[in-house]
């Protein structure tokens, strides 16, 4: 048993290191995606790459960040002043737009890193075949520039060659540079703060408290698991398609609860697919951590200790543990949501009074890119759209909200219309879309956007076929719908599509409602 007072004090100290990194990143970030939508995370790691504290922003980054740190540790030796960069989904990344910077923190007299800090941010464009780098692709290479673990800064000097190569392969290099600089600032903040703690409490104490915090989270997770009825709980659900082939994609899970431990096994899940719905292992791990984390309660620190009593088996070559060269853009944003759905569907059997019915189960990714005639320059608009939250035991689901693996903010309509040749015609709650039940599922959103210029439109969305499930007899939520309105005539669009749209066209997205709970 660790020391109760120190534990609580260090909980605050480590949390504020991560928090201050997040503030530095948001303050200095250049793109709306970081400043306005807050699509980033920051975290602190011990020397073994275990995540000790995280500034809570985006759950899909959760389990993935430790793997980034472990990937750089495997790939290179560090000297003080180094900063590593990566986005390769097969070497510590998740999908290409998420670029991670890892900084080793050294004590003055030691040759090996004492700890690590890392920041991960969603960059609005990292090249590839479509603006926004979230295309309907069949190979990773089409989705953007792939950055294996490399040193962006070596001994305090920026690796200019690497930076030039990177910036030459993206559509908005100035903005990328601004955001990378912000990540560097965030990491520098984290490293400095950690060294301040070392100066104040001594390295042995800081190290001991890192481990104490990990075992604290582990202890709480073990206690949670011990409180669940032992047994094997199974659930499966489907992605509508992979965007290339029409066949549904099955995600299957069995969760075996045995005493204080759990084994989560994804055997039976579809092999990886041609389209981009492939999730790498890091994403699956994030979803597992998220699902159990939600049962733990809000005040528990989110760290690697939560995962210690949980074994995750994700068969290689399936959509929950894809191998190269599979495309992965949708794995991060869409498959991650379905993995969460099946995990919660299984856990609902073990804890029926604590788990909500399925939420919208998609992020409704919308990218519109083209030439802005008003300003005479290209533009890329990327947005994810909220939907219905699943009904909770004892409470209706919330309407029009981001659920589970994401929590980004919307782009204000007035900001959007200044920035892009678009006009939002409608942004409202899609009434009646939530599943009926004793407790009603939340309603989705309807968002209609008129194009004021010709543009390429890409939609990467889910739950257009398979509806979000209800629980305890509750009805499913209504699936989402995508449509193109041209000259007043509405044409349905598939869930995953790229099209050349014209000025005057209206893109209509109706997002799914949440499932209902109880009869």
């Amino acid at each position: 048993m660790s020391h109760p007072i120190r534990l609580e004090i260090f909980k605050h100290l480590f949390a504020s290191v991560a928090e201050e990194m997040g503030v530095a990143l948001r303050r200095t970030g250049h793109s709306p995606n970081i400043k306005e939508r807050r699509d980033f995370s920051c975290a602190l790691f011990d020397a073994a790459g275990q995540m000790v504290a995280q500034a809570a922003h985006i759950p899909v980054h959760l389990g993935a960040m430790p793997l980034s740190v472990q990937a750089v540790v495997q790939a290179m030796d560090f000297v003080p002043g180094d900063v590593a960069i990566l986005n390769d989904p097969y070497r510590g990344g998740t999908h290409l737009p998420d670029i991670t910077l890892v900084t080793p923190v050294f004590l003055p007299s030691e040759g090996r890193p004492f700890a690590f800090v890392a920041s991960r941010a969603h960059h609005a464009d990292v090249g590839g075949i479509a603006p926004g780098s979230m295309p309907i692709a069949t190979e990773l290479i089409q989705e953007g520039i792939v950055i294996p673990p490399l040193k962006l800064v070596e001994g305090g000097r920026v690796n200019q060659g690497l930076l030039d190569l990177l910036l030459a392969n993206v559509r908005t290099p100035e903005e990328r540079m601004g955001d990378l600089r912000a990540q560097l600032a965030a990491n520098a903040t984290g490293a400095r703060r950690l060294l301040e703690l070392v100066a104040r409490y001594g390295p042995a104490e800081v190290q001991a408290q890192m481990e104490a915090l990990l075992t604290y989270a582990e202890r709480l997770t073990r206690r949670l698991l011990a409180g669940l009825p032992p047994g094997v709980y199974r659930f499966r659900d489907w992605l509508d398609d992979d965007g290339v082939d029409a066949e549904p994609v099955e995600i299957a899970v069995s969760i075996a609860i045995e005493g204080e431990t759990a084994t989560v096994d994804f055997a039976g899940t579809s092999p990886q697919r041609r389209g981009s719905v492939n999730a790498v292992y890091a994403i699956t791990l994030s979803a597992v951590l998220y699902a159990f984390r939600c049962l733990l309660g809000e005040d528990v620190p989110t760290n690697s200790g939560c995962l210690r009593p949980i074994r995750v088996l994700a068969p290689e070559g399936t959509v929950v543990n894809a191998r190269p060269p599979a495309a992965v853009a949708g794995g991060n944003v869409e498959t991650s949501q379905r993995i969460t759905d099946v995990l919660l569907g299984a856990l609902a059997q073990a804890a029926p009074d604590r788990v909500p019915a399925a939420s919208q189960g998609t992020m409704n990714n919308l990218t519109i890119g083209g030439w802005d005639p008003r300003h005479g320059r290209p533009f890329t608009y990327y947005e994810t759209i909220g939907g219905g939250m699943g009904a909770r035991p004892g409470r209706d689901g919330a309407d029009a909200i981001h659920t589970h693996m994401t929590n980004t903010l919307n782009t204000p309509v007035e900001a959007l219309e200044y920035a892009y040749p678009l006009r939002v015609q409608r942004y409202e709650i899609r009434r009646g879309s939530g599943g009926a039940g004793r407790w009603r599922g939340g309603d989705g959103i309807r968002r209609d956007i008129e194009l004021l210029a010709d543009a390429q439109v890409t939609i990467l969305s889910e739950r257009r076929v398979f509806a979000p499930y209800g629980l305890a007899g509750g009805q499913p939520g209504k699936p989402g719908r995508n449509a193109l309105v041209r000259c007043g005539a509405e044409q349905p669009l598939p869930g995953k599509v790229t099209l050349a749209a014209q000025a005057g066209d209206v893109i209509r997205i109706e997002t799914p409602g949440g499932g209902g709970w109880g009869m």
Partner: protein
Amino acid sequence: MRIGIDIGGTFTDFVLFDEAAGSLRTYKRLSTPHDPAEAVLAGLADLGLSPRNENRLRGLEIVHGSTVATNALLERKGAAIAFVATAGFRDLLAIGRQNRTRLYDFLADRPEPLAPAERCFEVVERVDCRGQVVTPLDDAALARLAEQVVASGAEAAAVCLLFSFANPAHEQRVGRALAAAGLLVSLSSEILPEFREYERASTTAINAYVAPVLDRYLGRLAARLGGAEFRVLQSNGGSIRAHQARREAVRSILSGPAGGAVGAFYVAQAAGFPRVLTFDMGGTSTDVSLCDGGIRVTSEGEVGGLPVRIPIVDIHTVGAGGGSLAQVDAGGALQVGPQSAGADPGPACYGRGGVLPTVTDANLVLGRLPADRFLGGAMPLDASAAEAALARLAEAASLTPLPGLSPAQTAALGVVQVANAHMERALRVISVQRGHDPADFALLSFGGAGGLHASALARSLGVATVIVPPLASTLSAFGMLAADVVKDYVQTVMLPGTVAFDELEGLMRPLAQRGLAEVAAEGVPVERITLAPQLDVRYRGQAYELTVPLSPAFADAFHAEHARAYGYSYPDAPLEVVNLRLVAVGSVPRPPLPTAEPGNPDPAAAYLDTRPVVLDDGLAAVPFFDGAALRPGHRLTGPALVVYPDTTVLLHPGDRAAVDRHLNLIVAVGSGERGAVSGER
């Protein structure tokens, strides 16, 4: 005569300033939450200012900090309001920014919108980002809308149409139609002509929601105080006349805390510390703010979970205070707060049935809070109840007593250290997270519970000086009197950075004229009015702006400010001028602080006795002093405890304190090493 009145949850504080005599007097009585005006009127009567005495009231100026608007919002006791939006956007308030407030809590809900779905309406019309009408507004539709809104049972309405800040004509027509139908109307283009529709709508809806409540309250008060001039402190730290405050109620949403910040800054500045962290630790929560040569305001505030985009004093609040409960959680960590014992049952030592230990109990067990002298001895504390509560905590946490200390004392030391960790984090949010090093600031502690923690916090943050003012508990009311008349204006323009300076000046002119006229209308002579025109500028494509003064060289100023704030700039990148801002300040004569020349440094006259106190490194005999008996020039050396009627100050070993000419206790914080964490196993 001027009077500052601050209505708090427990006490209503009065500070009287007689300009002719130059005298200052303070008074407090219990608040009357069911009708706050009752305590105000009763207090004035106690002070010989009975409403029945018309002559006494004439020439009297009352500056009032009102929690009426705040409480109406936090307790959801505002008016039944309707919300009117552009067709297609009536769910603006419900959707918000579509994010959830807690990431890992299935049961968390966003705050309910102030207007329920059945009272949200839309009107067919559309204006584009340049202010041009895309879809005209139809009069027949307007008439129908007014009927529907009235039929919904709303007594007030908030109107927020897209891009109304660029062209308010449609919004004004909607407003006239609703006002003609008998509704109290708030227009977004008047309350906050700034882009970002949700934040503008939220601010406007809050105004509509609290305005009728504040209006009734101030109307009642004004009617009974006929001859007096009546002013209200706004959230930006400036005061305005009551009749104005009644229309723009959202501007006084953080009136009380703003008074505290204004008072704290005034006192700190007079003591020679213009850069100060203010620290107001109360029973259930702690407010902190940062003053960097002036009060800092933010337009990114939130009250009750709802965004408020008008400038408000930048105050950060954490749910930890003297009454916060300490317990061991399931993972074995000793947690303090966020649950609080409140006033009832209160801490265990209040003897009203509280069983769990609080921070106050911990301080009592450590001997830092004299049981017989709490609130000037008016409320004796039950030390044995506190002792028992902490002993149970020590057992639950399996603490091994530190050498020479009992288990209860060991646990108490831990509770204080954990509480300090909360406070330290709050102070870091307001300083480090805003780009400041706390070591560059002094720490000013007011509020009943702060004095025992301030010196330890200062040590942890590298702060060299702690200030405890003698007005500590009435500082907010005092701040009401020290507040200038401040009005701020904003207008979104969204122009390219290449815009000519002449054009910007021309656009600023109507704001400047309005600012001058409105501050003059508050009774401020023109020569005491200053106008600060500013621009919100950003790099094209950036999402947030920096504010720089309006000048021909505004672009250079922006690059320099960007480099200062963020560490880099792009001198060649294109800029956007997003908003015009104007701050109009009318300065008012400030009440002088009580002053006496320093005398003999020996505080023997204030010495009370010496008692055993648990300090961070163990038990020590510590002298106690009577704060009320301290005189300018007196010097104290830590360890020592200074007992004021409403707060107690702990000086740690190594601290050196002196009483300045305004009776502030100025503590030079010792640089000694931080004590070991208690209860080592």
